[in-house]
């Protein structure tokens, strides 16, 4: 029996280990050093040769049968293969489905924005015939809202839009527990609804404002439009400078004022 040559001759040998070579851990310089040391050590050389020969045998190519025919046949039976034309049709179909889905979601969002009540469930019970009848009406209303929404988008996209169109917009300022609500509605010649911020459109001069001041003392609770006696209302001191003319004129309840007037007297607070 031949001696075990896995270990180097001398444990204190500082030259690279044969195993490190087969671990692919040596640098070109170390490999050179290893080969130099092998020329002086028969045991090391034998160990190297044996390992190299063994690994060569391990890497020897084997006769490989072709699996493609059997595998493709079996997969074809279970799943089927598509031609180039078929794959293209599948791709177009997926694209079309995605586009349809996007269109439906956009439509629903538009309807919801312009007619939020269309999505609210009925609060009272009634016969089915009424429900069917109402569904038709609601569907018609939804379609009208959708078409109006689309018209609005179309109008926005045109470069010559004459004025901003405003239906309802609410500005709310808070100071502690006081709250000031400003509601604005468009004049009758502006009918298409959009919701702009209060900043830019106030200076347009063509908007009628219904201003409701809903500033309350801390012991009261009320919301905008609440019919609390006007005597109990108070303008928050921090805000009163912003609505100088309004404070005087609004006593007695909400009223319509022309935004041009308001802007002239109240814009210094903005």
């Amino acid at each position, binding site marked *: *029996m031949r001696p075990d040559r896995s270990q180097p001759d001398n444990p204190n040998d500082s030259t690279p280990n044969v195993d490190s070579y087969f671990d692919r851990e040596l640098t070109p310089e170390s490999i050179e050093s290893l080969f130099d040391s092998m020329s002086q050590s028969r045991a090391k050389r034998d160990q190297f040769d044996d390992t190299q020969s063994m690994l060569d045998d391990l890497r020897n190519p084997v006769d490989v049968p072709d699996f493609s025919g059997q595998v493709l046949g079996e997969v074809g039976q279970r799943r089927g293969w598509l031609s180039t034309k078929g794959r293209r049709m599948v791709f177009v179909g997926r694209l079309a489905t995605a586009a349809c889905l996007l269109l439906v979601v956009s439509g629903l969002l538009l309807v919801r924005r312009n007619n939020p009540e269309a999505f609210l469930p009925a609060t009272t019970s009634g016969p089915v015939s009424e429900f069917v009848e109402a569904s038709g009406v609601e569907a018609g209303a939804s379609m009208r809202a959708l078409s109006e929404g689309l018209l609005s988008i179309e109008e926005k996209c045109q470069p010559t839009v004459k004025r901003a169109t405003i239906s309802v917009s609410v500005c709310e300022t808070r100071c502690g527990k006081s709250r000031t609500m400003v509601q604005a509605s468009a004049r009758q010649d502006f009918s298409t609804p959009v919701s702009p911020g209060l900043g830019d459109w106030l200076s347009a001069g063509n908007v009628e404002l219904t201003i409701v001041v809903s500033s309350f003392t801390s012991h009261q609770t009320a919301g905008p439009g609440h019919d609390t006696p006007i005597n109990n209302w108070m303008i928050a001191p921090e805000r009163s400078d912003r609505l100088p003319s309004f404070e005087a004129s609004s006593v007695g309840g909400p009223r319509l004022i022309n935004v041009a007037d308001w802007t002239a007297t109240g814009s210094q607070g903005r």
Partner: protein
Amino acid sequence: MVRSLERKLIEKAAAGDKAAAAKLIKAHQGSLYAYILRMSGKPEMAEDIVQDAFVRVLMHLDRFDPRFRFSTWLFTIAKRLYLNANQKLKPHYDSEIVSSWGADTSAPSAPTIQDEVDVNARGCIQSALDALSDEQREVILLFHQQNWSINAIAKHLEMPEGTVKSHLHRGRQRMRRLISDDQTQKQHVSEVWS
């Protein structure tokens, strides 16, 4: 195979392109078959496992994560199939072996000297591989036969790199000793025979 090209082939095969699937199979069948053949030592078993592995992979190409190598995924599936097959393997009884031997009436072709040398070498290597533990055998094959890195093997086998290196060294050492003993024994036999 270049990874970008391989990814394109995978995408096409997943979309139903038969030619792309065939290219994928041909690119990997050699290494996978050699690996499973060395792991099992049984050509019939290796063929079944490789075929099954490819079918499974092609059926579920949509689940392939492109962050990883395709070969890693393929080898993982093949290894699981090999382990399952090993568990199900039943022992052969003498009567079955005798009857199958008797039934084989085809005349064997005359082997050349080179064939004999190759068969001996392969048999010797396979015997040495069979004597290793499962981990040692797998690490030796993945590193030396499939040229995987230590890092890739560690991830594949879910073990630290140090453990992989330890299996590699011990496995190589053991194989070397077994082959050396076998050659010495054959030398003694030939001396006695002559």
